[in-house]
């Protein structure tokens, strides 16, 4: 694994290895001294062309806990204004000796362009590109699902296991969601069954080959008793540009997760949300704060998964053969 660009690039075994490595990383985070010497002397650049304090802090924390040097580079240039060009920025970072570039960009495919261009010799980690992919989000979601639904069910550590047999429902703005795209690919790779639920206006034309089912009615899908429900963020600005649904009220009525819908789910079903939440729109406050919601835990798991990804990309090649954590 030279780069981490798309969740779909990962094989089942690679994905399980990342989850297992993340489990080991998470264990170290229980200790009083959380810092590991693993990436000492390596430089990780957080290259954020799009604001996301949450994701940047998560990657920064992950890199620092592995003792890497971290450079944060915020280039707010939008793709349209081309304020700071991707190329010039990448060349600058290359001159600083970046071993890994964590890139967040509003343009779909920007990490792919960076990885292909030769502008940087470092590993490229996609931290979210446009409406395309967000692979570490999908990995942290898979990690969270495995912890709750696989480890617990079997009463053992879930190391080495995938998500075979689980049914995950993803609800909301699929059209504009990189989280949905990454999750559909990764969860399928890991053996889970995925159902997307959205109003038809928020399902992309051309969704047919995706490795999932698509439904328009949330209540019918929840009635099948899924193991997990993932609520996607609805961006209010989508309303102005396109009128994808008639009103926030109607959206909430049809697709919002509230106490009423929550109560009809099986007892073991967990609720996920990639954050930040619009309480009262796609998820009600009582659903967000219910014991089934693992949303806060997702944040902590994000650090462990990103530690694992950085470790495997940067230190992985140096590991003696046979060592498996």
């Amino acid at each position, binding site marked *: 694994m030279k780069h981490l660009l798309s969740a779909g690039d990962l094989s089942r075994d690679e994905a399980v290895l990342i989850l297992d490595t993340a489990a080991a990383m998470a264990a170290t985070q229980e200790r009083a001294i959380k810092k590991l010497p693993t990436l000492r002397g390596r430089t990780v650049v957080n290259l954020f062309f799009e604001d996301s304090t949450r994701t940047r802090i998560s990657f920064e924390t992950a890199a620092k806990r592995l003792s890497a040097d971290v450079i944060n580079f915020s280039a707010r240039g939008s793709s349209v204004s081309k304020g700071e060009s991707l190329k010039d920025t990448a060349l600058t970072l290359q001159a600083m000796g970046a071993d890994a570039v964590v890139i967040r960009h509003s*343009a*779909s495919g920007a990490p*792919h*362009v960076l990885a292909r261009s030769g502008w940087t010799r470092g590993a490229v980690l996609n931290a979210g590109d446009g*409406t*395309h992919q967000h692979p570490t989000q999908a990995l942290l979601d898979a990690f969270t699902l495995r912890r709750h639904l696989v480890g617990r069910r079997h009463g053992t550590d879930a190391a080495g296991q995938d998500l075979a047999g689980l049914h995950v429902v993803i609800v909301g703005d699929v059209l504009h969601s990189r989280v949905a*795209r990454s999750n559909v690919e990764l969860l399928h790779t890991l053996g889970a069954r995925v159902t997307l639920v959205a109003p038809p206006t928020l399902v992309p*034309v*051309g969704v047919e*080959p995706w490795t999932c089912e698509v439904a328009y009615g949330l209540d019918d899908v929840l009635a099948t008793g899924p193991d997990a429900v993932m609520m996607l963020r609805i961006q209010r600005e989508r309303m102005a540009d396109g009128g994808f649904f008639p009103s926030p009220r109607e959206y909430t009525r049809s697709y919002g997760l509230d106490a009423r819908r929550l109560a009809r789910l099986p007892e073991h079903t967990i609720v996920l949300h990639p954050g930040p939440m619009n309480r009262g729109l796609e998820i009600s406050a009582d659903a967000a704060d219910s014991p089934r919601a693992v949303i806060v835990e997702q944040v902590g798991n994000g650090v462990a998964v990103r530690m694992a990804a950085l470790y495997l990309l940067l230190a992985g090649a140096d590991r003696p053969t046979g060592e498996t954590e």
Partner: protein
Amino acid sequence: MTAYLLTGARPLGEESTDVLVVDGQIAALGATAADTAVDTAAERVDATGLVLLPGLVDLHTHLREPGREDAETVASGSRAAALGGYTCVHAMANTSPVADTAGVVEQVWQLGRDAGYVDVRPVGAVTVGLAGERLAELGAMAQSHAAVRVFSDDGRCVADPVVMRRALEYAKAFDAVIAQHAQEPRLTAHAQMHEGVVSAELGLAGWPAVAEEAIVARDVLLAEHVGSRLHVLHLSTAGSVEIVRWAKTRGIDVTAEATPHHLYLTDELVRGYDPRFKVNPPLRTAVDVEAVRAGLADGTIDIVGTDHAPHPREDKDCEWAAAAFGMTGLETALSVVQAAMVDTGRMTWADVARVMSVGPARIGRVADQGRPLAVGEPANLTLVDPAARRTVLPGEQATASVNTPFAGMELPGRVVATFLHGRPTVLDGRLVRPGDR
């Protein structure tokens, strides 16, 4: 007196013969050509096995001058055209300033004459500043030295149905044609690529086929209503082919164009996010490519236009969303048409002459281009070696830009010589400067 004897050429791919060119005209064909050549001390050009075509005519070229000389100039684009086998190109109006006045079209026309590699026929804008609101002075441009007969807001669609109707009507007065870039603007806001399976996966905003087809359907009906000529630029979808086919059976005076890239490339190429494949209208699906090929073969689509759209490197050396739309095409068009249509057995070289020379000249009302290969006709000629194969190397092209989607691909056919009004602009595949002969 200048004279050239092309020996062993195969007119339209048929039986080989000798062709004598004297003072800008085809002076003799066959056995008499060689005899007459002795008297005229003609320079001999060995054309053994080469296909002789009437000089190619492009109805859709972006020469970028005035305004974007960093991408192309009339001179550099003219050289690229000659090397591609062209003797006439129509320069699109979306320059800066826009070619929406007699002054600008005459400037472009004069730059073409100064360059001297091809006849440059300026296209005039339909509306002032390409804004789609008020008609530009079509009459002044038609009556200028540039004698404009093709009007287009290409790059933008004349979306307002009333403006389009008026343009179609008004152009009748000087036998001009309105060439439409069919793109419903509201359906394509922020569009980045063909809307379908690939765009869904890549997370790029979709450019749906219906946004083209809706305008094509509207425009053929408008053309029928007012009894005008309509030309559909760069038709790219299976649905558009069907609509044009229907319109023609109804007797509507519509012509249509396909680009080489829509005959050869699909949206699958976008998967690597390489902006060389970003173009408007976008690359479509294999089903569309097949429909466009079938439409070109059966005459539904009248011509091939390159939509040669050079861009400076920085406009393609970036992320997909930031990149400019467009690809170069003058120096690869004939090879792509050979690969897509001739080598697949769907068209003959006579058909190639029809769609790349005769048809475009007729639509553009260019009297001395796209003529038969006969004695007394103007000697605008192209010699192509259909057996050659070549790898496209962007850095070695004459266009000032490198945004060819065919870079690194091996394509059949090579232009060996081009004659403009009896004078070679290309010999042995190399440019001949206008003063040199």
